[in-house]
């Protein structure tokens, strides 16, 4: 089976960089700041394979580089080195070799991102429906009736009451803001969704409903997702496969059950033990 996304050798170094950066950082050195030149090796040599309809978990502590991976895939940051191929139906996109217009088109039409903080993914000064409309307008849907209909449909699917469609998301609860953000990400039917700490900061019952929603959407729409989180519970519930990151490197990867039941790397063992 062909993957939908294949990433290899992905690196991002902030700072001038020096030849000794790589050997002086990483999980063995227990740091990601190079002691020789002061550069931050945020991500180094990350490889991922995402199959269609699959949820891949990226787990790690703060500063492990997991969010940077999502930012790189989302074109928010430019990688220092690395390749990523996005297999979208007939087309294959070399993600890091695109020009600005292609990146924008891909991001507006074929990818969706849900951020931890709804402020990043939503414009809180326009209505919930307007936020969804904006994404449709970006992909040149210019019929007001069609936009209304699709926004209504998506908000219903993400369990946002239809009567609140024309309200500003500023007045919504955190969980509802997050659901609007998911609706916005899904409106163009993207085959790939990036989830960056989507449940962090929400209370437990709301977390559970968001996770249910994500699983339900994955089941019904068959969207492939990358879920970044530091929460083992989220990983256990969502991800079929998981990679564990520390100091910018992948220390362990495999089936989620395997990693949680029989962790091999010392850091993963510590992490799993701490959660129990």
């Amino acid at each position, binding site marked *: 089976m062909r993957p939908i996304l294949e990433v290899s050798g992905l690196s991002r170094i902030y700072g001038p960089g020096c030849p000794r950066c790589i050997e002086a950082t990483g999980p063995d050195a227990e740091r990601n700041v190079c002691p020789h030149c002061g550069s931050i090796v945020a991500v180094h040599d990350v490889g991922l394979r995402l199959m269609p309809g699959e949820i891949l978990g990226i787990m790690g502590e703060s500063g492990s580089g997991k969010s940077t991976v999502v930012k790189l895939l989302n074109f928010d940051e430019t990688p220092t080195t690395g390749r990523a191929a996005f297999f979208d139906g007939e087309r294959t996109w070399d993600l890091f070799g695109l020009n600005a217009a292609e990146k924008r088109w891909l991001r507006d039409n074929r990818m969706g991102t849900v951020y931890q903080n709804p402020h990043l993914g939503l414009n809180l000064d326009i209505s919930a429906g307007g936020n969804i409309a904006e994404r449709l307008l970006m992909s040149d849907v210019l019929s007001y009736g069609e*936009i209304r209909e699709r926004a209504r449909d998506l908000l219903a699917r993400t369990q946002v009451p239809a009567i609140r469609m024309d309200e500003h998301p500023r007045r919504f609860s955190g969980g509802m803001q997050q659901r609007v953000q998911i609706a916005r990400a899904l409106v163009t039917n993207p085959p790939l969704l990036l989830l960056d700490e989507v449940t962090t900061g929400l209370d437990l019952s709301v977390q559970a409903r968001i996770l249910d929603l994500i699983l339900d959407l994955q089941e019904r729409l068959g969207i492939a997702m990358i879920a970044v989180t530091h929460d083992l519970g989220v990983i256990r519930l969502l991800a079929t496969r998981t990679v564990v990151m520390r100091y910018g490197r992948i220390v362990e990867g495999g089936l989620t059950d395997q990693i949680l039941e029989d962790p091999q790397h010392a850091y993963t063992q510590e992490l799993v033990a701490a959660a129990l």
Partner: protein
Amino acid sequence: MRARRKRRPASYGFGFLDENAKKELRRALMKAVAIPGYQVPYASREMPIARGFGTGGLQITLALLGEDDTVKVIDQGSDESVNAANLRKFFALVCLGVTETTRTTDATVIQTRHRIPERRLRADQILVFQVPYPDPLVVVEANAGKRREMHGAANYARLWTKLYEDMVTFDEITISHRYPTRIAGHYVIDPSPIPRWDVPKLHMADCLYLFGAGREKRIYAVPPHTTAQPLSFSDVPFRVEDFTDEHGKRRACARCGATGTFLDELLAADSVKSYHCSDIDFCTETLKATQCAPSSKSAA
């Protein structure tokens, strides 16, 4: 008592601006015409009127005028407002040989604020707009660098979202003037504060439209025979002001009786409303034509 010496015009060269300034302006104009709708930056000069009083339009007109030109200045359709009359006098003072006029048909260069003349302009005429805010994206994006990127990528989704929000809140698009208009299928311009009524006149015109923003230091153009599409939804067509009264009848100008013009609402001392053509020259010409008509009929 000594006889007062006759005042001579100040010793400026033709067109008030120095030759290098005019050259720079003309280059910016050429570029603006070459890339329809693109906002060309230029070095806006200090003028003898304050920024915001039409310095952008003034500089363009000064760079365009030659000795054989005939210039008309309108302010909200009127030739006689203080601003229009003063600018016209200024042109006569600093461009010796240039003819002043109030007649649209006679003018070769027309400088305008807030209106496009009702009579369709010819290929040998140029309309120069005074623009307060050149960038239509300023309402949705505060960062000028990002705005420029958005223009480059023709990324106007956020402007459309604003129209969507208008539709949701008011069931119609409430922009009355400065209606964002897409030129030649790419750049969206702010067509200066002209009413919606005038926006269709930008589309496939015979004349050249030039826009000058003095304070914001931008020049842009809508060349002849160029498409100009006001932003709208495919199922919510763009509408101009309709001027119908409470009985659904189109109001007519109280002075000349025209029913196909943009009307100003005037309030008399006894607070009775009346409606008049905003384009005074058009109104006067219509009046003359109708007054002549019966006499010619009786002669026949």
